[in-house]
């Protein structure tokens, strides 16, 4: 089973929950850190990571001896990753999506593809948790290819329970991280920004047809507008995790949630049990 944890708004507690769920799993578990622009899972898991595997995308080189500057490649490229200047065609690797269109249309055989590094993937384990961390190189603009490589590494172990720590937001990186998951947990904070961004995340969950539920983090004792909004839309609230300065301080120092707050153990286990039993998800 693949469980993805996303949020919409940043800083709601995705990594806190992902690592907590991994820590209570009773079977071997694969934790995928797909927040590749800012991967934090290993601050909590503290696995020894094996040497990194580079993640590359194919970008192009133009062989000037063969190129007759017909510009067919420029016309085919949907991403403005080829420019014409000084009587030559110049590739712009940062914009290239590695789709292969230019090579397909080139009649002169002038285009070759070369791997261009954009990030890396590393694996390590700590107890029953195997962590696969994707990390985008600083300066590389596009995170989805690194996220897809991290997901592919996870799919090489299809029998394990997979927990995916997704990036914040509701655009292509979040979609790449959560696509095809069996269940999506949306971690929400009960603030005006938190409620606004949760609604966007719910739209994505529905468009991806994912079964999903909400965990409300830093929740006060009383019901909030966010609680009411979930109830009004028949969205299951899997758990409410309390606001606590002590837990925040412990998390700041890289402590797993249940080390700082062992009394939440049953709550976290119940989230996993509910999802694995398959009986609580909003109809997408």
């Amino acid at each position: 089973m693949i469980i993805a944890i996303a949020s919409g708004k940043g800083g709601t507690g995705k990594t806190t929950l992902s690592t907590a769920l991994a820590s209570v799993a009773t079977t071997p578990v694969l934790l995928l850190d797909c927040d590749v622009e800012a991967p934090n899972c290993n601050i909590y898991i503290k696995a020894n990571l094996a040497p990194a595997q580079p993640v590359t995308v194919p970008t192009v080189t133009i062989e000037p001896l063969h190129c007759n500057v017909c510009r067919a490649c420029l016309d085919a490229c949907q991403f403005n990753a080829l420019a014409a200047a000084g009587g030559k065609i110049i590739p712009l690797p940062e914009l290239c999506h590695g789709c292969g269109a230019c090579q397909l249309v080139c009649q002169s055989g002038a285009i070759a593809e070369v791997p261009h590094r954009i990030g890396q993937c590393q694996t390590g384990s700590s107890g029953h948790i195997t962590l696969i961390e994707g990390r985008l190189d600083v300066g590389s603009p596009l995170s989805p290819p690194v996220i897809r490589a991290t997901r592919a590494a996870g799919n090489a172990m299809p029998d394990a329970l997979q927990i995916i720590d997704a990036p914040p937001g509701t655009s292509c990186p979040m979609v790449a991280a959560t696509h095809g998951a069996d269940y999506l947990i949306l971690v929400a904070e009960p603030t005006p920004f938190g409620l606004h961004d949760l609604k966007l995340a719910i739209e994505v969950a529905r468009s991806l047809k994912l079964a999903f539920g909400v965990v409300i983090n830093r929740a006060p004792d009383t019901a909030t507008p966010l609680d009411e909004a979930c109830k009004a839309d028949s969205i299951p609230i899997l758990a409410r995790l309390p606001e606590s300065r002590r837990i925040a301080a412990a998390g700041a120092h890289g402590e797993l949630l249940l080390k700082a707050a062992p009394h939440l153990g049953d709550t976290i286990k119940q989230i996993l049990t509910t999802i694995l039993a398959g009986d609580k998800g909003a109809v997408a």
Partner: protein
Amino acid sequence: MSRQITVLSGKGGTGKTSVTAAIASLVPNAILADCDVDGSDLPLVLAHHNPVTTPFIAGQAATLDPSQCTRCGACQTHCRYQAITLDEARQPRIDPTLCEGCGVCHLVCPTHAIVLEPCDCGEWVIADTNTSKLAYARLRPGAENSGRLASVVRQAATTAAEERSEDTLILIDGPPGIGCPVIASITGSDAILIVAEPSQSGWHDAKRVIQLASHFGIDIYLCINRWDLSPEMALHIRNELPDVGATYVGRICYDPMVTQAHTAGQTIVEYGCPAAKDITQIWETLWNHVK
């Protein structure tokens, strides 16, 4: 001379929007731009009116006309994004959430059964605030091109600033992370203000965005939000700043009244909560460096 400052963090949820909105209250004629286009929260606390909305059509998506399809499967073979699958009858199905809009399927289709159609990715807005202007966007959930839309928002703010005769501050609420929307939001900026969280993850992520800004040669300033949740980490960050080339400009206390301010649709400064004093001090220090 006009100045452009982008507020960033690396890690999400450190308080970028809260701080940006508060500074907006301190600089009434600043033009605001919310470049966090797939979770745009600045408009929730900056009262605005007279919105001018423009659709954001960017990129393309492949669509299939089954009546022209010969089920040769070439599209599926050549798609590098697993966006095309063949059903039992070898009829292609295109998953719009995976389609990159590259057009390769259109190029290889022998009967032109696949065409590319422009994507409606959302909309952007320029509006009047009580004292100035606000540019923001709503990226359609799940859409691509957030970097391009962030650029459009930034450019809308720049254009509004150019239309004025006096010097203007452009203040940009940036997205989390280090990817294309962040890069789009710092293009043209004179300085970035990092709102950092006093935690290991917060510092790890702040350092990545500091590295990114250094590539661009932009001056980097940093404040620590909710510093008293971990005074040790706050001190650790302060001590390491000179090594990473960032200048410390202050710290903000943990303030539970911030949520009340935002629930009332007000900025921290308007509401007058304890954090307002800290942010005012940070702004004065920052502006002294940047002006």
